[in-house]
């Protein structure tokens, strides 16, 4: 990496404004990685994340699936955690300290019916979440996401509408890479009042088998694929969504370097989620990605990220 020559007048800024939320940099901790309590969220913030997303909360507590729940194979991670969470009432207490985290905190909310999502927000909305993210796209939990038919344009619009009524905060809809009409799903979220799209949730589901015990390794047998295997899919999804909607996109899927982040922004992401990158590079990945981005920007005369968002489109 060349040392940046700032005398050229290029002072790269990573600051982004996402739906009115000011982020010092575009890296966001993805939901489902680490975000189980405020102590860990604070640690991620200290390690350079521009924002953090909590682990998804629903109305009722869930233990989630039995172990094995997360494994890593040669091209990524595979998980079937199953939306374990303490439920909205407990989450209200457990995340009470989020204003100490130091960066904006996004509340991820799940539900089985459109009204569930709104009910969760009615409860945890008392906390200073910067935005709410609705994953409508989990491939491996019965009752939620794809297994509950939430990945259709119709369901997406209904859920976005229900949540739109429940909060003035920015509403982010997180979509699946596995749905057939992704552009329509994104447009439905936009029509329902969503302020941003998060693309994408995990891929698949997939399966891995241990040949000595002759059993699928995850206890749920199948799981969502993330990490490097997901990255080209996520890039293509963000590219397609960018053509379909006007609202900003958080691009997520296998990002672990500054170059990956810039690539994702070039296909249309205004900010980037990092999840599996924590496995590959450690919790310091956020600061490392930012340093690399600034270095690339300085080398290429880019002073603001708005100069590169979507430039891969003709």
């Amino acid at each position, binding site marked *: 990496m060349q040392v940046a020559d700032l005398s050229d007048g290029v002072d790269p800024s990573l600051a982004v404004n996402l739906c009115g939320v000011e982020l010092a940099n575009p890296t966001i901790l993805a939901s489902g*990685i680490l975000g189980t*309590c405020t102590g860990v969220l604070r640690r991620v913030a200290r390690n350079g994340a521009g924002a953090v997303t909590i682990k998804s909360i629903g109305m009722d507590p869930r*233990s989630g699936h039995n172990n094995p729940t997360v*494994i890593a194979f040669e091209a990524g991670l595979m998980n079937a955690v199953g939306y374990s969470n303490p439920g909205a009432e407990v989450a209200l207490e457990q995340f009470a300290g989020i204003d100490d985290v130091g960066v904006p905190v996004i509340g991820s909310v799940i539900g089985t019916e459109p009204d569930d999502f709104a009910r969760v927000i009615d409860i945890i909305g008392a906390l200073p979440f910067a935005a709410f993210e609705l994953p409508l796209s989990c491939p491996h939990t019965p009752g939620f996401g794809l297994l*509950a038919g939430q990945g259709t344009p119709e369901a997406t619009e209904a859920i976005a509408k229900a949540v739109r009524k429940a909060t003035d905060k920015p509403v982010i809809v997180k979509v699946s890479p596995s749905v057939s009409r992704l552009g329509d799903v994104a447009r439905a979220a936009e029509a329902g009042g969503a302020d941003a799209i998060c693309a994408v949730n995990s891929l698949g589901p997939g399966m891995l088998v241990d040949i000595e015990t002759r059993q699928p390794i995850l206890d749920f047998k199948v799981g969502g694929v993330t990490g490097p295997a997901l990255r080209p899919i996520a890039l293509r999804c963000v590219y397609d969504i960018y053509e379909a909607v006007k609202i900003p996109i958080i691009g997520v899927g296998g990002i672990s370097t500054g170059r990956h982040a810039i690539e994702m922004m070039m296909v249309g992401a205004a900010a980037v989620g990092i999840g599996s990158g*924590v496995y590959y590079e450690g919790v310091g990945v956020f600061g490392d990605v930012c340093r690399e981005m600034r270095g690339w920007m300085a080398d290429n005369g880019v002073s603001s990220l708005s100069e590169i968002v979507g430039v891969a489109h003709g």
Partner: protein
Amino acid sequence: MVELPRAFRVLSVESEGEGVSSLWLDGRIEYAPGQFVMVWLPREGGKPYAVSYREENRFAITVKERGPVSAMLARIEPGTHIGVRGPYGRGFDLREKGCIVAGSVGIATVAAIKDMYPAMPLLIGARTAAELMYAERFKDMRIFTDDGSAGARGFPTEALPGLLDGGGIEVVYTCGPEPMMAAVFRLCEERNIECQASLERYMKCGFGVCGQCACDGLLVCQDGPVFGSGVLRKLGDFGEAALRKDGRRVSVGEYAQAGSVQNPEPEDPAS
């Protein structure tokens, strides 16, 4: 980088005491005392365990029957294959001039230290004589039982001050119920003696991504399971709070009861 189980054949299951057995596995594993492995019983579940015995061509985990998975592991048929991922985590910083305080099945975690330093004093607390483990393995252990049915009646922490005040001990290694370890740590702090505690938390991934084992901002699977005095001093959740399987933060007392046969984890609604 992969996190996939290696299959090992169960050679035998040996009783270590009431409700406790060691599963001997055919093969070798790299392992530093204080680390853990994620054990997978296909179709049943997976849990973290210490490697409690390590020999040339076989090794063992010691399982206390508590909940559904440990109960099935204890009844496993020799010849069955189970999966082992890891080893994971940060182990003990080993030194000769130490002593060990263990409680209940925590002795399985510190056994590797005693194997390495056979002369190191080992204080063990068990509820009753029937539940006492490794009495033949470590004949010079100082035994304490709640009911006095073996050794002295009381807790190993009662003997620790005398042992430390006698001099010659630079570090205390401890593993057992968290209130016991917190008491050991306090006694060490009072005497400016280093303490290394091996913590236990509910785990899912075991390799630093899911956040299930969070203890304040640290992950027991990666930053621990062994934590030294410098960290323990600042670790507010040590001796205080742990996350249940659903991620709810509860007292260590409530956590210790959760997931047992008497107090099973609630089933998620079938959808």
